[in-house]
């Protein structure tokens, strides 16, 4: 059995805004094994990106980790001081491919300059040695090593995205978080990037959390899938089970809302209403105001995640 590289337990991250406390990540628990890809999906505002940033130990202000634990390779990172996080954890143990990161490359520096910065800072490498390493990683992501001498504007969107992926991998982290790594890319380039990530997973045994709102892309790469709603994981398990035997009504509705390429669908389903305000989330099950099967107990008590099958958990009173 593969070892656990990331263990998250009862994690809570709240945004302390002037209008109230937004419970963006509320009691989230899961594990990630070595070499596994966990897909994290949900509508905008469900807390999936907030969770990603929290795992990096850098919740966006005014966000704060309020409770719970995050263990990377057995080491607790919640509560570590910022300088330790920066020196020993971030990018070394866990790294992130940010949403729209390809547009975050600095236009006035060469690709090489931007890639070697972490190597010089974290590993104390000399410039030459670091450049060699950067070239090796560019080759790994299917680019020519010569690209170290280029500027971002000379590259296409897909090439920039590959550079960003190479940079996230360059310190050989245990866990990589990819936040919408293919949004804003054209469909052919998107498929090429997904292929690249599959290849890296296989060759490097990469453990990854793949965050996206698009369940079709998620199915292309995830071994396990977690569905988030209003700051909570409401269903998690083996991806085969999530896609073919979804247990939670929310998951069922999300899947029925996807138009299929080669199937005739008479009518797409949609979920009436909108995701709740996380300052004052609904009582009981947070999905109950939009759920077609809501019962009395759903309004009053919050369901816990429970095991309904081998490696398949859902939080719903119907189960």
């Amino acid at each position, binding site marked *: 059995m593969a070892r656990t590289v990331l263990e998250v337990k009862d994690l809570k991250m709240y945004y302390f805004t002037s209008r109230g406390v937004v419970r963006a990540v509320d009691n989230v628990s899961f594990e990630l094994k070595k070499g596994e890809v966990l897909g994290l999906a949900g509508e905008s505002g469900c807390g999936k990106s907030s969770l990603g940033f929290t795992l990096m130990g850098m919740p966006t202000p005014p966000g704060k980790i309020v409770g719970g634990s995050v263990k990377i390779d057995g080491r607790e990172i919640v509560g570590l001081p910022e300088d330790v996080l920066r020196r020993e954890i971030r990018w070394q143990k866990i790294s992130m491919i940010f949403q729209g990161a390809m547009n975050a490359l600095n236009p006035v520096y060469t690709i090489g300059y931007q890639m070697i910065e972490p190597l010089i800072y974290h590993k104390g490498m000399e410039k030459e040695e670091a450049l060699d390493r950067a070239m090796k990683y560019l080759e790994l992501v299917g680019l020519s090593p010569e690209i170290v001498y280029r500027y971002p504007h000379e590259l296409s969107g897909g090439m920039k995205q590959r550079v960003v992926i190479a940079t996230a991998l360059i310190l050989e982290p245990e866990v990589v978080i990819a936040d919408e790594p293919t949004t804003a890319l054209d*469909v052919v380039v*998107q*498929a090429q990037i997904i292929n690249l990530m*599959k290849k890296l997973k296989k060759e490097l045994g990469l453990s990854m959390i793949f965050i996206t709102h698009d369940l079709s892309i998620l199915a*292309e790469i995830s071994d396990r899938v977690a569905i988030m709603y209003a700051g909570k994981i409401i269903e998690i398990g083996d991806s085969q089970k999530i896609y073919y035997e979804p247990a939670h009504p929310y998951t069922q509705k*999300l*899947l029925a809302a996807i138009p299929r390429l*080669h199937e005739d669908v008479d009518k797409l389903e949609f979920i009436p209403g909108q995701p709740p305000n996380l300052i004052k989330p609904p009582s009981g099950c947070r999905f109950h105001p939009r759920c077609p099967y809501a019962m009395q107990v759903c309004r009053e008590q919050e369901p816990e995640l429970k095991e309904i099958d081998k490696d398949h958990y859902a939080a719903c009173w119907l189960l």
Partner: protein
Amino acid sequence: MAEPILKVENLKKYFPIKRGLLGALRGEPPRFVRAVDGVSFEVHKQEVFALVGESGCGKTTTGKLVMKLLEPTDGKIYLEGKDVTELRTQEEIKAYRRRVQMIFQDPFSSLNPRFRIYDVLEEPLLIHGIGETRAEREELIYKALEMVKIVPPEDYVGRHPHMLSGGQRQRVAIARALILNPTFIVADEPVSMLDVSIRAEILELMKELKEKMGVTYLYITHDLSTARYFADYIAVMYLGRIVEMGPAKVVIDNPIHPYTRALLAAVPEPIPERRNIIKELPIRGEVPSAVNIPPGCRFHPRCIYMEKGLCDVKHPQLVEYEHNHWVECWLAGKI
């Protein structure tokens, strides 16, 4: 067959690239971005015609030409048999705009944040002088909101756009397009900014409006799955040309052009069994710039079936491969 609502003939739009002074003095020839380069199609009443392609293929420019937001370099556009490119005077163009309306991609920026929903919907009525009294206009506004299921309308007319969700905003944008009772709607990526569940809701609404009110759409999208679901016809564009066109299901289930095949192979599908398989993408390289369009078939540098001496020399024409299914490829049927 009935007269098409919209007929586009050999439409072209070239955007000039600025030459420097030095270039002009040296007598360098002016260069152009050939955004749309000879596009022809027809849309019939109550049909949805989808223009599909990657960014930069000219689909949005085609939509803007149809809207008369841009003047074509060459070619004709006919709306119900009348030549639109000949319209010159303000009044003629205004009358045209009343019959052709547009839905934009981003409902967060397409509604004026300072307007109440009432004002958003009243503006087109005032511009076109529809409804003489306030009461008349109010009735039209309420009816339009009910049509897009913003109910009860009296609860929403006083709100500002920021008080609505993304799906509601897009529905208001659709109501604004419908309130003039247009013959034709250009919808440019109307659902690509929306969440999955809301996307389904808006597609369902647009479909219902088509069936109930006989709306005809030009649906511009990069998403082949929604095109299959929503459109009757699909035209696949590449570098300013339509390379394949036909009934939606035929194009998707039986694609002939190598580019269409590559696009379809790239579409992600919610099928988890394939997660460990590296997908084969039958395409090479990246889209070239629309300034330096390759000679011969413009897809040949990326095509895996390319035949030397033919594809890289002679430009293929869009021909009817089978009934109603058009393909622009020298090797159609042979690969």
